[in-house]
């Protein structure tokens, strides 16, 4: 990939000046017009029938304009499995589920009116552990599951709480275990966590009398919001406009569509008004997606030389009260269930089970953090049982060019060995540090892999307008939530178009004006949107050459474009400025040649397939991104406190479009992973979320963030734009197991769960003695 000018350089972020000066517009950051403020009435039981909702007092409260309940608005919504209503209709399925919404002239009046709504419930027995929920006598949470509309790549089990049962059957599992010299088997548990972006969920909706619905939303995908609302409300898409602002962090919790639809019927009653809802921190933590807890059993068979011959993985996921999105996490974890390792014989059963806990859904990693926790912990146990070096076990079994995944997909573009070795070198792998001052030291390593979990037809598109002066506008449907998409995408456009990046403008999407993008999720945008933009740029460039050839009366093949002028390599006198080409070009005789140049490009994967329903075999991955994390810790046995001495992360980006932004993702993702490894766990008591604020749910602050080193590996992705692949989620995946592996190394004790809080570590030390 010789001679790249812009791709591979750290140009400053397109949105940085706006963001440091406070002028970047987030959804709530402007006067929108006459407003109504919405507030939700939330369920006080985790599972129950709604006997009665009395809204009379609320409706009489001064300032209140409307109160809406599920009975009046039973419309359904869901991304993969349509199992949700905007408001609970006959029953509630989790604590805090919205049962009514109030709109008032002030937020205060709305909140006061919410307290005046009286709801009578008949409590039902709940399910709070998915393993219990799978049992035949468990209370059923969705009686109608069998009748729900569902994308036919998911397999709900009628009359149960199982919303999806995904299977992998690769090779011959019995033969695999028969060949093994040793069999290792462990249970693992990963608790729920919360994304806690610093900006909470927000939406605003306006209805105009000509029947147009305008929606402002913090959603990661305006196109999916439009699509789901169109279906749910039975409206044509051209009558729905979804506008994105900058998003103050997403991490998956703002994927799909959720809160926008709550407001529509109210907006319809008050045309011209803007009806807005702003979740407070507690509502955001409790009422939006939570990372699904995972209870798993993992069994591996291994030869004396360290080769894994068989893997059997049973995963039981706490899907929460609704699994419209969660069913796909369970599927992704299933088809990726060998992690970064090439294992010939695999049997996986991944179950998505309804419970009466908060709604499960996508979080950075999309099931990979949870699923690979088990894999990376078990490799450690394999190494110990065999008396081998854990790095060696990973190198022996790690995927190489031509390896197959659990689903049998062949992988070509990777250098997993390098990812592992880079972090191992950095932390001085193999050099055992002696314990000091009574504190124990240990080192740990973990690998990782992830592909975007997207439908095989998830598409992207882009348009590029060349202005009269040769500057350009790039129009795309991806959202900017901090990942740096605007900058990376304009670099790709600049590279293909030869127009300098500072002469390119790019904005966040508005479905009335920007072309289609499925979703900004799954670390896919650099690849998918990047490919569309590259194609649009090539299309525009082709037009530039065609027009210039006509203008200069010379063959197109002789022409080059340097960003400012088009010139002939053969005859230096033949040049036309980009202004001349772009500005509705005409000949000296006055005859027109061409109008304004608009480049277009689109993308849909051609390398993905559906999976066999019985064996899970097929090609679910658009691309696979590998990496590794290495950690050195010091553990104080008196207090159980784990101190991070070294932290290193490597990710194979294929080609880092912008190394500074890429490194920023590596840092941010690793520290988010560290935060989950050491501090974060959502606690429930019979469905009631107990830690719903930053005081009770601690995330890493700067004073407990250690130094870290990031390494970008670049093994080009053959079909990625300039060899690039997406890397946003990956850095988080290996952190928890790497830290646990290091703590195990230091203390000689096992951990099957995290976070590794001082209490948990101290208890483990005590139990060992």
């Amino acid at each position, binding site marked *: 990939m010789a001679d790249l000018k812009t791709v591979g350089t750290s140009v400053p972020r397109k949105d*940085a000046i706006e963001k*440091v000066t406070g002028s970047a517009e987030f959804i709530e*950051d402007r006067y929108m017009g006459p407003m109504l403020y919405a507030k939700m009435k939330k369920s006080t039981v985790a599972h129950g029938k709604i006997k009665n909702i009395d809204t009379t007092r609320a409706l009489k409260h001064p300032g209140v304009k409307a109160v809406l309940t599920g009975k009046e608005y039973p419309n359904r919504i869901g991304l993969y499995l349509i199992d949700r209503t905007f408001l609970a209709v006959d029953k509630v399925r989790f604590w805090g589920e919205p049962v009514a919404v109030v709109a008032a002239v002030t937020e205060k009046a709305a909140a006061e009116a919410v307290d005046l709504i009286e709801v009578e419930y008949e409590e039902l027995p709940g399910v709070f552990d998915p393993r219990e929920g799978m049992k035949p006598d468990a209370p059923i949470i969705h009686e109608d599951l069998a009748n729900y509309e569902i994308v036919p790549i998911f397999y709900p089990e009628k009359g149960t709480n199982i919303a999806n049962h995904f299977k992998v059957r690769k090779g011959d599992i019995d033969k695999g275990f028969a060949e093994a010299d040793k069999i290792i088997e462990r249970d693992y548990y990963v608790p729920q966590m919360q994304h806690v972006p*610093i*900006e909470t969920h927000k939406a605003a909706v306006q209805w105009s009398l000509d029947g147009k619905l305008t929606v402002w939303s913090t959603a990661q995908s305006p196109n999916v919001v439009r699509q789901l609302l169109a279906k749910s409300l039975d409206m044509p898409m051209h009558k729905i406009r979804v506008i994105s602002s*900058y998003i103050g962090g997403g991490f998956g919790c703002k994927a799909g569509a959720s809160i926008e639809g709550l407001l529509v019927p109210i907006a319809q009653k008050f045309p011209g008004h803007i009806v807005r809802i702003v979740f407070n*921190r507690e509502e955001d933590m409790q009422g939006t997606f939570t990372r699904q807890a995972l209870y798993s059993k993992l069994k591996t068979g291994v030869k004396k030389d360290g080769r894994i011959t068989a893997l059997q993985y049973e995963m039981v996921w706490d899907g929460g009260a609704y699994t419209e999105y969660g069913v796909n996490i369970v599927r992704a974890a299933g088809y990726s269930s060998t992690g970064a390792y090439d294992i010939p014989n695999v049997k996986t059963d991944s179950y998505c089970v309804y419970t009466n806990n908060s709604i499960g859904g996508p979080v950075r990693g999309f099931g990979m953090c949870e699923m690979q926790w088990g894999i990376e912990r078990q490799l450690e146990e394999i190494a110990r049982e065999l008396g081998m070096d854990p790095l060696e076990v990973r190198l022996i079994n790690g995927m190489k060019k031509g390896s197959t995944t659990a689903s049998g997909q062949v992988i070509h573009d990777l250098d997993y060995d390098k990812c592992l070795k880079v972090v191992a070198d950095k932390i001085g792998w193999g050099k055992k540090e002696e314990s000091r001052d009574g504190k124990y030291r240990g080192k740990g390593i973990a690998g990782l892999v992830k592909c975007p979990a997207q439908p095989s037809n998830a598409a992207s598109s882009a348009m590029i307008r060349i202005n009269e002066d040769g500057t350009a506008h790039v129009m795309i449907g991806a959202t900017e939530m*901090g990942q740096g998409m605007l900058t990376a995408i304009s670099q790709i456009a600049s590279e293909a178009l030869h127009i300098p990046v500072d002469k390119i403008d790019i904005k966040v999407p508005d479905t009335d004006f920007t072309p289609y993008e499925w979703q900004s999720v799954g670390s896919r945008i650099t690849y998918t949107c990047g490919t569309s933009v590259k194609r649009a740029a090539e299309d525009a460039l082709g037009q530039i050459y065609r027009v210039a050839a006509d203008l200069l009366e010379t063959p197109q093949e002789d022409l080059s474009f340097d960003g400012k002028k088009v010139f002939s390599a053969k005859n230096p006198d033949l040049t036309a400025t980009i202004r001349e080409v772009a500005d509705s070009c005409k000949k000296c005789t006055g005859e027109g040649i061409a109008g304004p140049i608009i480049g277009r490009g689109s993308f849909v994967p051609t390398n993905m397939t559906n999976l066999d329903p019985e064996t899970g075999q097929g090609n679910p991955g658009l691309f696979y991104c590998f990496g590794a994390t290495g950690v050195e810790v010091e553990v104080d046995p008196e207090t159980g406190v784990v101190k991070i001495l070294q932290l290193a992360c490597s990710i194979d980006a294929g080609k880092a479009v912008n190394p500074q932004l890429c490194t920023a993702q590596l*840092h941010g993702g690793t*520290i988010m992973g560290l935060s989950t490894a050491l501090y974060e766990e959502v606690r429930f008591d019979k469905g009631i979320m107990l830690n719903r604020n930053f005081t009770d749910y601690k995330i890493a602050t700067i004073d407990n963030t250690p130094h870290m080193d990031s390494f970008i590996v670049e093994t080009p992705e053959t079909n990625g734009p300039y060899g690039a692949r997406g890397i946003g989620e990956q850095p988080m995946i290996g952190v928890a197991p790497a830290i646990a592996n290091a703590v195990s190394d230091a203390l000689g004790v096992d951990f099957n769960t995290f976070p590794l809080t001082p209490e948990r570590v101290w208890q483990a030390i005590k139990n060992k003695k």
Partner: protein
Amino acid sequence: MKKQVIIFQLNDEPVEIYVDPAESLLTVLRDRLGLYGTKAGCSKGECGACTVLLDDRAVNSCLVPVGKVQGCKVETIENLSRGGKVHPIQEEFVDKGAVQCGFCTPGMVLSAYALLKENPQPARDQIKMAISGNLCRCSGYKQIEEAILSAAKKLARQGNSIT
């Protein structure tokens, strides 16, 4: 509470408003005065997104009843780039890649500003202390720390410590 006239200095200009003195400075700034640079991340004093300067000290504006700023000096992020020039701290945040989603950024920048005003050459520990109340979910903090360190150096080089 009964509404009162509150007079204070906001971004070097006098303002006079008639409000419930118990209302938070944060909502007054945003919803009444249209200064949207100050963000709300929790409205409970837990995240630092709403940081402003109150008589030169960084405070969580969500916890400050507006009655308390009577006669005081309040500065928001909008004041830092007054005169159409971004402040060296802001330049370094851009340069060092300390910005991601940007929602925590105004608060981070102002906490850094208050720190450098009081302590023009802070050690790493002091930087960490100064912004330990500002949560950032995106960055992992490293670039923020680097940006503040290099802003301190830059200001020293330029001889214009914050006054």
